């Protein structure tokens, strides 16, 4: 995102600065209103990170963040030695990386397929339908999964049983073996069409004469995709990949890991569905262990920030495209 900001102030004599500020005072009043919201809802919680190093009790209110006693790294230590630590960290990483591997290429493939369609009404029809799930809440998506996959009333299980492919219904929703597939599959279903918008726009930016020249040279459809379409999308692919990896612990492009793990998770698939965020939520808001949950949250944020910067750095090195 590029924003030109006019830096002024330093070169301007003080008296003039004050005069200009007075002239702009109404505008500063507007901005100030927004900054109040930022300070309250974004910056104050950032100070709350201190809670992770303190013995915070909710009865202390907001000033307890500063007044409660320091405990150093006690809560980090406790998390690392938690008997669920290994499982939670593994689940978080596996779910995130599986999503990058499967959900990141999906919209690229869809965009390339759509680009090969000559019939405009058909193209528009498929696009319109593929965006739709993006606007539906995760709760509905989970409801749909239930209607299709549950062991007793799920449409898929019923159909497979009727057709004689299986003798026993598959416990897709209540078995640790299926959770990762279920989460990645539903994420692809929900967000694939949405991210196709950006890749299609990138393809639209490719000079059509390249395709004409390739056709004259006898390049087939696959050759054109490989040598023109994909290289033409390269910049966009890199930027989207950087975005994906930076937000991978939250679920990357394909929606919230938390919402999925929270809604699709249950006591039986818990061995694969419990992730850092759901665990922090449980010990934090449900059990009221605020400092412990903050420490867990903080570890995750730090890893995210490292991922953002390192993926951006690598993208800059490899391709020259980057986010910032």
């Amino acid at each position, binding site marked *: 995102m590029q924003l030109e900001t006019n830096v002024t102030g330093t070169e301007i004599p003080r008296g003039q600065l004050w005069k200009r500020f007075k002239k702009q005072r109404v505008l500063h009043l507007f901005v100030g209103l927004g900054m109040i919201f930022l300070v309250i809802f974004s910056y104050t919680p950032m100070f709350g990170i201190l809670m992770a190093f303190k013995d915070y009790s909710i009865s202390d209110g907001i000033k307890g963040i500063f007044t409660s006693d320091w405990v150093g790294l006690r809560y980090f230590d406790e998390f690392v030695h938690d008997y669920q630590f290994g499982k939670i960290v593994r689940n978080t990483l596996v779910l995130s990386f599986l999503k990058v591997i499967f959900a990141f290429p999906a919209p690229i493939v869809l965009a390339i397929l759509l680009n090969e369609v000559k019939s405009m009404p058909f193209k528009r029809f498929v696009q319109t339908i593929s965006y739709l799930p993006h606007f539906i809440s995760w709760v509905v998506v989970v409801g749909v999964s239930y*209607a299709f996959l549950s062991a007793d009333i799920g449409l898929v299980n019923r159909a497979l049983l009727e057709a004689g492919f299986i003798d026993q219904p598959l416990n897709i929703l209540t078995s640790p073996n299926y959770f990762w597939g279920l989460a990645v599959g539903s994420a692809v279903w929900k967000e694939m069409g949405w991210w196709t918008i950006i890749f299609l726009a990138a393809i639209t930016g490719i000079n059509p004469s390249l395709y004409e020249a390739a056709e004259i040279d006898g390049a087939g459809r696959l050759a054109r995709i490989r040598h023109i379409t994909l290289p033409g999308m390269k910049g966009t692919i890199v930027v989207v990949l950087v975005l994906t990896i930076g937000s991978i612990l939250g679920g990357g492009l394909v929606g919230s890991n938390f919402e999925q793990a929270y809604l699709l998770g249950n006591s039986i698939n818990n061995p694969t569905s419990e992730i850092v965020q759901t665990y922090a939520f449980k010990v934090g808001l449900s059990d009221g262990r605020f400092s412990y949950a903050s420490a867990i949250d903080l570890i995750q944020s730090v890893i995210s920030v490292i991922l953002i910067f390192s993926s951006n750095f690598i993208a800059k090195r490899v391709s020259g495209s980057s986010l910032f």
Partner: protein
Amino acid sequence: MDSTVYLLLSIIALTMLYPFYYVLIASFNKGSDTLLGGMYLWPRSVTFENYRIFLEDPKWMKAFLVTVARTVSGTALGLLLTSLVAYALSHRDLLFSKFYFTMIIFAMYFSGGLIPYYVVLRSLGLLNTFGVYIVPSMLNTFFLLIAISFFREIPGELKESAHMDGAGEFVIYFRIILPVSMPLLATMALFMGVGQWNSWLDSAYFVQSENLRTLTFRMMEIINQSNAPMDSVAVANRPGGGVTSFSLQVTSMVVSILPIICVYPFLQKYFVHGIMLGSVKG
């Protein structure tokens, strides 16, 4: 080759569309009959019983009204504050604008996490109030940046002539900027509206009062109930009728999806431009 492409895309489109269709026909089918299975294309024993139960249940109706109220007021206030701040920040000669932008961008990348956020809401007295749905989302940093770049493309002459006529910033914002920014306002309104409509996390985290539950939260509740490991389908079986927890679930899903489908045609006109403006420049 061509036929492969068309076939693949048709399969993808069908996979996206059919789940919605199935939910729709299940909501118009007798609940106890749906459980027998084998219904794929049409409702087998058509009934409006599911919708009657839904509409008569004060719990669902209340949740529906809360959701409508938060969607309308949340969107209106979000539009107002976000566009007002964006208008001020769109002035290229605004003093300290670098400081303001740094504050905004930093807040987009870093957050304190859920627990400190909860503590802040608690000390503001927002927990367990309707305000918790509205107030924290009034300034949308993502749309703030989009709105700034949109406002910057409005010809400066429009504002200057108003200035000459002695109009203040507030008048210019309301009388000149907003009226020529309909595409932007429509995009923001639709996205904020859909966000408010779909939201359930804040209802689950920050609200205990049964009177403040949202439609999506209620839906999650009933899905979780019937999705529990010890699954018993007849949990919500009402005496006499064929309504099951599953048929109520699909009915609530239709009610929740319907408004989105209704605004979808308008949504689509704008969002392609919106997402391109806001996110990636390849």
